[in-house]
């Protein structure tokens, strides 16, 4: 059905976006390290430090432990990276609509977001190290934990779009086209704000950052799921981490801050695309600093039991509360 041209353009665009995604993701890691260092009164590494690290990691050999299952052990980083990049292709970058937008929606993105974590779990179990096993168990538990608040956010957004009579409420393109803040009244605003805060706390968990880095916990598990990884495999995980950071930021931007600069500046065509893309990345960086860097620098690590309680009880309730406010708002809007 699709013409050759469309497929070719899609592949080219996907390739280009993957490379941009990897580069921006690594820059994001660099910014995170730099800002975090400044918060701790250190000078911090140069912004290109993740690239230097990556270059070194990729030039080193993979060490596969004797107890490991080599196939699974080696596949895990590739799956993690591939799935993070695929999520990126489903995200709208500024005014550019998602490349794979026609083939999936927010639900699929949610599933894909779980894949890198699952890959890490598989890789951890395949490492054959007690630290990695404990880390993998914790990764599974925390994955289950933060899914609930994340799901309530997605449902709230979809409900909002659906109740406003917008077709295809789960598609990211329609979410971006209709900024959710414009669809609600004051009560819904409060609800959305609660959901935004919830999302800000889910992001560090999704990215396994302090205080939710129990699966990797350096001081207790010596790196946990990643303990046996070295060389190229660790490099791939690093890239995946960068892309995932970008994806989480991009998702937050798409859901909560989808506005673009080009209509304001009166631009069109490629100029608009470029300006919006830059604006998009700026928004992502700002959001990541606020939700990842500040939280990871200002808190101590939680126990895994705390992570579960926090997400199931506190943020679970917060998510559901936000969701009910949004629903209440749209019901009230229907009445009056």
């Amino acid at each position: 059905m699709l013409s050759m041209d469309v497929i070719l353009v899609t592949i080219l665009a996907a390739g280009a976006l993957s490379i941009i995604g990897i580069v921006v993701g690594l820059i994001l890691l660099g910014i995170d390290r730099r800002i975090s260092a400044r918060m701790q009164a250190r000078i911090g590494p140069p912004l290109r430090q993740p690239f230097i690290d990556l270059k070194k990691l990729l030039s080193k050999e993979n060490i596969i432990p004797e107890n490991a299952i080599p196939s699974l052990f080696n596949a895990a980083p590739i799956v993690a990276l591939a799935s993070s990049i695929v999520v990126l292709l489903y995200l709208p970058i500024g005014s550019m609509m998602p490349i794979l937008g026609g083939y999936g929606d927010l639900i699929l993105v949610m599933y894909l977001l779980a894949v890198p974590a699952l890959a890490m779990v598989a890789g951890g179990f395949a490492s054959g190290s007690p630290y990695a096993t404990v880390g993998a168990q914790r990764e599974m538990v925390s994955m289950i934990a933060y899914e609930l608040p994340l799901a309530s956010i997605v449902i709230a957004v979809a409900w909002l779009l659906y109740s406003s009579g917008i077709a295809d409420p789960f598609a990211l393109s329609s979410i971006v086209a209709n900024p959710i803040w414009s669809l609600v009244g004051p009560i819904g605003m409060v609800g959305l704000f609660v959901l935004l805060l919830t999302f800000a706390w889910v992001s560090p968990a999704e990215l396994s950052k302090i205080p939710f880095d129990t699966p990797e916990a350096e001081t207790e598990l010596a790196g946990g799921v990643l303990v046996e990884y070295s060389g190229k495999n660790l490099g791939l995980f690093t890239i995946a981490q960068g892309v995932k950071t970008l994806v989480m930021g991009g998702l937050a931007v798409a859901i909560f801050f989808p506005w673009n600069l080009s209509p304001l500046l009166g631009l069109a065509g490629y100029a608009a695309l470029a300006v919006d893309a830059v604006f998009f990345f700026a928004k992502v960086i700002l959001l990541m600093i606020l939700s990842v860097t500040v939280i990871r620098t200002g808190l101590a690590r939680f126990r895994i039991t705390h992570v579960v309680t926090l997400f199931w009880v506190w943020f679970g309730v917060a998510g559901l509360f936000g969701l009910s406010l949004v629903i209440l708002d749209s019901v009230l809007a229907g009445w009056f």
Partner: protein
Amino acid sequence: MSDGTPTKKAPYVVPIGPIHPALKEPVQFLFEMEGEVVKKADFAPGQTHRGIEWMGMHRNPVQIVHLTDRICGICGVTHSLAFARAVEQIVDIEVPARADYIRVIIAELERIQSHLLWAGVAAHELGFDTLFYLAWRVREESMDVIEYITGNRINYGLVQVGGVRRDIVPDQHPTIKKCLDGYRDLLGKMLNLFLNDTTISIRCKDTGLLTFEKALELSCVGPTARASGVVKDVRVDYPYSAYGDLDISPILPSAYGGGINGDVYDRIVVRLLEVAQSVEIIETCLKEMPDGPILWESKLPKLLSACKKAHGEAVGRHEAPRGECLHYVAMDGHEAPAMWKVKASSYSNLHSWIPMLEGEQLADVPIIVASIDPCLSCTDRVAVLRGVKRDLMTKEDLHRLSVEKTRRIQGC
């Protein structure tokens, strides 16, 4: 299980150490885990024995006093002070009063830097690197003052048998006072950051409990014992140097307002409040320091010959930042002591790990291990090797070996 035995998950073993990010010095832990919970804990020290006592028994006291600086990387003055006090008792040396005050000042400065270092390590074990950087940053102030007084940052080389080697002159007072004032201002902030932070208190409260009875039973010392409510402080119970002239009392966690639980949180409280106590002590000492000489005998050859003539044995005690440190020295009219035994403070505290760790979560192992401020290089006195296999020595084995060695030395 179907055969009637109580169902339980098979415990699995998690080894931590000898080299592990949670441990700042080598020691090996073996944990039998059920899920995330530690069911059974065991540890094996002796991974970093350096034979420093053996080195000392081939040297004269004036040489050893600087060797003792190197027993611990953090307690630069603790061991030299305890050793010097033991030798002074044997040789019957009267330490000049001014030297006693300078010794107290440097010992308390060391307590400040050691407790702040510990605070940083504890924060790091909790995954709170920001607080770790902050604590170590403010620690630098005391390191600078120590450097200013003694000349070097770590191995001070200040204590000499019979006194101290460097005086604190009035010109130096403003710099020291500035540092002390800085700490006084800072204390409120440090207490707030450590004790009011929810993420720290949920990890530290009711974690690593050591009851009063257990602490007594295991003869814990220092802040570990005091956090469990044991009123024990060599500076008060057995005053030495200038401590007898000072009005100090052991700090218990109840001083912060709460009760005494004997958990990790209480150990943080005790150590932070002791920083404040040390600031006050230094201030008082600077004010009340008498004039006079700082050495019993400034001519080293005379000191050496006095030591050579001495016979007898003595125990030198000092309240190190980690608790009581003890040096036993026996001299028999030779250059080198006949016997020199070091009991570092951590030696008394290590066994409190077992009751603290059992029943706790794996996630809390690092902070519990760190909470007694272990100093393993100071503690390790024995490493037993048979070929490549490592034997565990029981009390009976050790006793048999010591009897054999005594017989060998006495030649019968």
